[in-house]
């Protein structure tokens, strides 16, 4: 019987799915780290600090749809890959990341809604999320990305190196299984 897509990416394909997801997440991080370097170290003005791709393609930074798209990809990835985290510790940390990303996504949804409707919240000159009422956008994004990424990373560590009491996972992510090739199929 053919397995569904979700069953595959949470079973034999969990490892490659997580690797692809991490490439996307780290590429996004690279852009944010370049942007903060431009502001905090090089002293560039915030509107000019657009990371690397943003310097070549300014629309990448100014377009709300791209930011919303990434937030949606993050939320979908965290949700879809969660069943593959079968032990207690890795599931718990991954769920924390999913919960925080859900709120982060709501913030981007508000921004996207304002952009599409042409009406900004609280009569602000630019689309504004709730937390952005108090916190500048660059620092807010740095904060959200940090508090989503850290529990996600800890979850992956526990997933790759599960405690002894954890049951046998359906995926190939655990490193000790790679040294015992028969363990997966046994």
């Amino acid at each position, binding site marked *: 019987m053919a397995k569904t897509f979700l069953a595959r990416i949470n079973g034999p394909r969990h490892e490659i799915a997580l690797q692809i997801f991490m490439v996307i997440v780290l590429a996004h991080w690279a852009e944010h*780290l370049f942007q*903060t370097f431009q*502001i*905090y*170290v090089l002293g560039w003005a915030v509107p000019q600090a657009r990371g690397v791709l943003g310097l070549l393609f300014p629309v990448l930074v100014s377009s709300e749809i791209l930011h919303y798209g990434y937030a949606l990809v993050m939320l979908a990835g965290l949700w879809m890959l969660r069943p593959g985290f079968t032990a207690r510790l890795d599931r718990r*940390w991954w769920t924390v990341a999913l919960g925080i990303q859900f709120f982060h996504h709501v913030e981007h949804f508000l921004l996207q809604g304002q952009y599409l409707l042409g009406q900004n919240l609280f009569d602000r000159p630019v689309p504004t999320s709730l*937390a952005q009422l*108090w*916190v*500048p956008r*660059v*620092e*807010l994004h*740095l*904060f959200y990305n*940090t*508090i989503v*990424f*850290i*529990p996600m*990373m*800890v979850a992956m*560590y526990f997933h*790759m*190196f599960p*405690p*002894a*009491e954890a049951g046998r996972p359906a995926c190939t992510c655990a*490193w000790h299984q790679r040294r015992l090739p028969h363990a997966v199929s046994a």
Partner: protein
Amino acid sequence: MNIIRIAMSLFVVVLIAVSVAGWIWTGANQPPSQSVAARTVLGVGIVAGIAGLAALWRPRAG
């Protein structure tokens, strides 16, 4: 195991360092109301980073 854990920890240290840089920068370049708010969230980010490092390096049974 330790190589992965060290690589992850180094990335978290970079994130903490960026938050510290932001903490310093915002105090000198933003009005007080925004600076306090920015420092609050950056501080939470730093605490999250330290908590992540603690989770990675905490001894585990087994």
